[in-house]
């Protein structure tokens, strides 16, 4: 068969385009751009550039500092980073709490606490594009669980990335506060905050030490009756507060329960994470649900709307949440 000349030319042109793409791919790819093979345990040492002015007076920690992140990568800092991007609302709170707020240049769109975050450049949270991040010329990028898949991409583009997955329990929150204090040059402040929080956690634990049979809690995430299981941070808070909860045996993070399961388990306390600013549920909507009027929590007026942002965000305010939770669960226990 014969193709017209222009067609053959087109095929040739396309082939050429492809060749150019391949060639430029080969050129643009320096030795330091090696993609890690899947599964290989990567232990890269990343160093921040050290060609700038001396650290601020408040920065006292001894550098270099090396930390191992949640991905098992050891990241070394020769000096305190001055242009930090945080893609994690929890980490953002920690950064501001330890006094590194001035070093932050960009935060994800859910980082809304403290209010000073409003002056920082807003970035995406899910699958953030690298371009706006590069434009900020960061010397440290903090990523969390949701950005895990992009750590290698950002590193390949020359950015120093610390992967700090969302902590699963209170001890892990304290660890992250210490880690972030250390790498930002605010080790003493991080240590001080962690120690204070530890004392408050101890106090709470003492408060509930005598509790043998805590109240049964239903923590409502959505009006479709999704709740929090034991793998979640909420689960660990409830366990610390010695509460039992309806989804205690769940194998998934946020299982959906049937109304009859909840009604028959008869929880003593209902916590609504889908009320207030996060949804339309309240004590009165719960009472109106058919069959719910007989539940102990409803009859005794123990249906509480809680701030789901606080409960979901493992930052320095988690101990506030824990104390608040214990106040709700044990109104008689002081």
């Amino acid at each position: 068969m014969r193709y017209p000349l222009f067609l053959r030319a087109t095929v040739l042109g396309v082939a050429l385009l492809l060749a150019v793409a391949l060639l430029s791919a080969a050129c643009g790819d320096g030795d330091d751009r090696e993609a890690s093979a899947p599964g290989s345990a990567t232990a890269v040492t990343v160093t921040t550039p050290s060609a700038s002015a001396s650290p601020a007076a408040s920065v006292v920690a001894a550098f270099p500092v090396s930390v191992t992140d949640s991905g098992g990568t050891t990241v070394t800092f020769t000096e305190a980073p001055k242009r930090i991007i945080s893609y994690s609302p929890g980490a953002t709170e920690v950064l501001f709490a330890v006094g590194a707020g001035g070093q932050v240049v960009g935060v994800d769109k859910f980082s809304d606490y403290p209010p000073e975050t409003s002056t920082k450049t807003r970035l995406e949270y899910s699958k953030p594009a690298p371009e706006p991040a590069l434009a900020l010329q960061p010397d440290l990028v903090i990523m969390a669980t949701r950005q895990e898949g992009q750590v290698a991409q950002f590193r390949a583009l020359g950015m120093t990335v610390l992967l700090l997955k969302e902590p699963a329990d209170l001890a892990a929150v304290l660890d992250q506060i210490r880690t972030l204090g250390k790498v930002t040059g605010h080790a003493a402040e991080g240590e001080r905050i962690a120690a204070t929080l530890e004392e408050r956690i101890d106090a709470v634990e003492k408060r509930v030490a005598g509790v043998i049979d805590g109240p049964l809690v239903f923590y409502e995430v959505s009006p479709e009756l999704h709740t929090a299981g034991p793998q979640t941070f909420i689960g660990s808070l409830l366990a610390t507060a010695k509460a039992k909860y309806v989804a205690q045996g769940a194998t998934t993070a946020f299982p959906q329960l049937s109304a009859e399961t909840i009604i028959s388990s008869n929880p003593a306390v209902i916590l609504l994470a889908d009320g207030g600013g996060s949804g339309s549920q309240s004590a009165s909507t719960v009472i109106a649900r058919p069959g719910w009027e007989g539940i102990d929590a409803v009859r005794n007026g123990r249906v509480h709307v809680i701030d789901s942002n606080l409960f979901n965000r493992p930052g320095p305010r988690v101990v506030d949440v824990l104390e608040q939770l214990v106040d709700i669960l044990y109104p008689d226990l002081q």
Partner: protein
Amino acid sequence: MSVRARLVFARPAARPAAHLVLAAGIPVLVAAVIIATSVGAVSIPQTTVAATILRHLAGQGGAGGPADTIVWDVRLPRVLLAGMVGGTLALSGATYQSVFRNPLADPYLIGVASGAGLGAAIAIVSPLPLDYYGFGYVALFAFVGALAAVALTYELARSGRTVPTANHVLAGVAVSAAATAATTLVMMLNEARAFVVFSWLYGDFTTSSWEKLRLASPYVGVSWVVLLLCTHRLNALQLGDDEAATLGIRVERLKIVTVVVASLATAVCVALSGLIGFVGLIVPHACRLLVGPDNRVLFPVTLLFGATFLILADLGARMVLAPQELPVGIITAAAGSPFFLILLRRQRRGLP
């Protein structure tokens, strides 16, 4: 090919206008690449963009600094990958429409999409390291899932040594439904990571890299060559299986080769950029309205315009709400359907 076949197909199929469309395709594509590389969430002067690219092409390496990285390592691979994926999906769609003689056929018809989705979902919820950069486990599982679904569909549809077209399409629907159900189950059982699966399923070019381009180019390039070489035979197939056979075409072999090649190329694209709908369905139809049904012209035109379309759609995805990005599938549907309807109406009035 027999003499008779030649006689049948030696008609002056391509209109002069079709040649013009094809000739215009390459400069239009090049213009799209240039525009899409010049514009982004971060404003970089055109002269810097041009200087950066020329310096790299001349082999002088990068100048360093964020502008250099943004233009060369972020934007250009993204634009080229979007073009490669767009062209491949459109070409695969044209192939499926031709082989299955079904105007609703798209590259995802026989299970590629749902198989890839299931593979990716399993990789994402597994303890394997999550990495969208290069060809990580997610892409690998998606690729394997896509091929497994295609093989299963084929095996289910096979009756003896032939694969009746209707069986093939129906088996594809069944396999897709089963794989989609399994994907949903995997997500339900792992809510903590369901969002990650969800955002993967949407498809986007945020995580493009030279690495991905280099990995995909060989497969995709071979598929382009094979499919473009089969256009003449696929023309004959439009007469029907038996008629094509009497023209000396080995119908079953042609179907297998083209479908496998198109599926393989689609699987590579899906593995690297997720599921991007609409391109594979609409672009071939739009091109058909422009240049007519002769596959010898239609396929290269589809390749070029598929690439151009997805590059511009991705540009839209980056720019409409910049710096926030939209899933590119929203743009392909929003921009593609009105354009397609206009073409369709003009065709009815007999204008083009």
